[in-house]
């Protein structure tokens, strides 16, 4: 018997819970670290990006309104399903990032563990970042962290899975929704991750994932009036100032990024959670 011809996957966008091609009909070739062709990825357009923002806004009410316990379970479910597809992710990470198989496996394992870490955070954020305010008067006053809204994420360019998970999971943990532009040259693990998201009870529209040219999509994301926060982690260095300026047009919260991509294997902290929440203070008089 000759070797069986494999069924290769068409990599598409993840938008509003569905997997469409780019409305523009464009694709671009994705190569491995040695320049060998891996697949054609969809090259998202400005219109795809705007559709993604609409989907993320539409999903915000339900996701932000879900109980923290529920969100924690959903994030844990993502970890479970990711764990079940370790081999596939390790192959994609190894091919795209050019790392040895053992290293790729370690990166995937760390990505699984990152989901678990953030899954455990969902119902502790309010305890840690909220407060009962001892105001000087006959009032009951408390402050709670709430998700900022729709977050535009320019995913890390180098770390195609662990980096992506490290910036995406905190968005979901706080109850915000995301429009993610994946790593431009290493987009395949992102699309495979969206297949995991689609089957792990993350409601459609909570995560929208676009592959394509970061420099083409980022300015529209930065300027979009229905995006509340912008994560510049994967933004091209020469565009960062302009993107921050565009974000100022609607007073977006901007997560600035260090010029060199961080070591994503380091233990995370709560900075990202803090950056993605708004503190709401509520007052009510006391009395009989």
């Amino acid at each position, binding site marked *: 018997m000759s070797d069986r011809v494999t069924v290769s996957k068409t990599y598409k966008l993840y938008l509003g819970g569905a997997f469409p091609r780019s409305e523009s009909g464009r694709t671009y070739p994705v190569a491995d670290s040695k320049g060998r062709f891996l697949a054609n990825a969809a090259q998202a357009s400005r219109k795809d990006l705007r559709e993604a923002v609409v989907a993320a806004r539409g999903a915000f009410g339900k996701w932000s*309104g879900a109980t923290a316990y529920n969100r924690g379970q959903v994030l844990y479910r993502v970890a479970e399903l990711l764990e079940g597809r370790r081999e596939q992710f390790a192959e994609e990470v190894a091919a795209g990032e050019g790392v040895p198989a053992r290293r790729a496996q370690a990166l995937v394992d760390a990505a699984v563990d990152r989901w678990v870490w953030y899954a455990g955070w969902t119902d502790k954020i309010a305890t*840690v*970042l909220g*407060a009962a*305010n*001892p*105001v*000087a*008067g006959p*009032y009951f*006053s408390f*402050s709670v962290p709430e998700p*900022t*809204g729709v977050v535009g994420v320019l995913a890390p360019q180098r770390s195609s899975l662990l980096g992506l998970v490290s910036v995406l999971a905190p968005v979901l943990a706080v109850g915000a929704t995301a429009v993610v532009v994946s790593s431009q040259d290493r987009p395949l693990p992102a699309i495979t991750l969206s297949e995991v998201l689609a089957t792990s009870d993350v409601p459609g529209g909570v995560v929208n994932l676009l592959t394509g040219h970061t420099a083409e999509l980022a300015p529209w994301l930065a300027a979009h*009036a229905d995006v*509340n926060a912008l994560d510049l982690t994967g933004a091209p260095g020469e565009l*960062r*100032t*302009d*993107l*921050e*300026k565009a*974000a*100022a*047009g*609607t*007073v977006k*919260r901007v997560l*600035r990024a260090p010029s060199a991509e961080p070591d994503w294997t380091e233990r995370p*902290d709560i*900075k990202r959670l*803090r950056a993605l929440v*708004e*503190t*709401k*203070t*509520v*007052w*009510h*008089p006391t009395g009989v």
Partner: protein
Amino acid sequence: MDLVNWEYAPAPESRAIANLKPSYRMFVDGEFVEGAGEPLKSVNPATEEVLAEVSTASSADVDRAVKAARRAHDKTWGRMPGAERAKYIFRIARMIAERARELAVLESLDNGKPIKEARDTDVPTAAAHFFYHAGWADKLDYAGYGPDPRPLGVAGQVIPWNFPLLMAAWKIAPALACGNTVVLKPAETTPLTALVLAEIIQQAELPPGVVNILPGAGDVGAELVNHAGVDKVAFTGSTEVGKIIQSALAGTGKKLTLELGGKAANIVFDDAPLDQAVEGIVNGIFFNQGHVCCAGSRLLVQESIAEELLAKLHARVATLRVGDPLDKNTDVGAINSREQLTKITELVASGEREGAERWTSPCPLPDKGFYFAPTVFANVTQSMRIAREEIFGPVLSVLTFRTPDEALAKANNTPYGLSAGVWTEKGSRILWMADRLRAGVVWANTFNRFDPTAPFGGYQESGFGREGGRAGLEAYLDV
């Protein structure tokens, strides 16, 4: 005895208490010095008389102040044990309280706000802010930002004219507690109390350069926030200017917090205690002449009680006494400047043009000074400018709703998100609304409450960052 006409006898606070001086100078590196900018004249908006001449900063002065702040940060303040910093800040709190009456009268003169508000809100809350933050200075390890959180360095701060002393306190107190040094620019029309605060800071013997106060107009503010020696910028003011600052700071790495405009919804349900709600509505929009970023400027009333509520509201608003800010019986004082009066007049005219139904209090207004009679617009629709734009004056826009969902949709239909009010006797409904209102502060069955322990700040285009509480420290720490 005449029981019909209860005229108030005038009860003016003495202007002499303000210790008004003919001229004021900027405060740099521990000393009051002449600025090289064009001096400005601070005007009493209640009489249009010049109160004092105030020296302003040139760009060289800004540079000098920032360098003084840097030296103070590197050599003294940034290295000082928190417990020592705390005692300096406690001193400031005490000295504000000791000079409360003087500060209140001066604030009323310079700003136009009623003396009772300056006396009962602005000055005591300013003292409270210093007292609260003083205590944090040696307890930052417990604030939840990790062990030994470090200051950012030099903070450039620009504040508005509506609460001149209080805004200075909101800015300076947390900055100092966290170990930063400060260059602060008060508003062009209200520089006087900040310069008396500088005197207090000098008397409290803070090391030179820890706090620098530079009067001037917007150009001085721009010079300050763009100065390369500034590590952190804090701005309170209009959304328009906030966007300019955020854009100007792009790519600089400076930490920024913005407290900007608002168009708060004050929502009254049919089961609300109406008399209480009326008081809250009046406080929400006529407090400080409506010069409040979190003012309850959009009243959303449940349709079934709209007529009754509006009648009660008119009757109550008609009793508000508009006039001499120094009179202890005055409820609504002077509009801060001619420019602001023009803006209010223009927006009110747009309301009439667009078909809203205007009602204005028949109260008498003084012949001189900048005044605007309390005004309520009924039949306002969401597309009108008076429902969308911040008026920053004693003008209320009334809209109606039928269901909680509709109230919520209308309340959230704004790019702003600073505050909101809810009036209902039903506790579960309050919490349901509070959960869903996209605003940084929600007042339920009350309005316009402020406290240094309670974080304050906006969602969306009302800005980012918080002032007050544990959350407010983040703005001044390198975390």
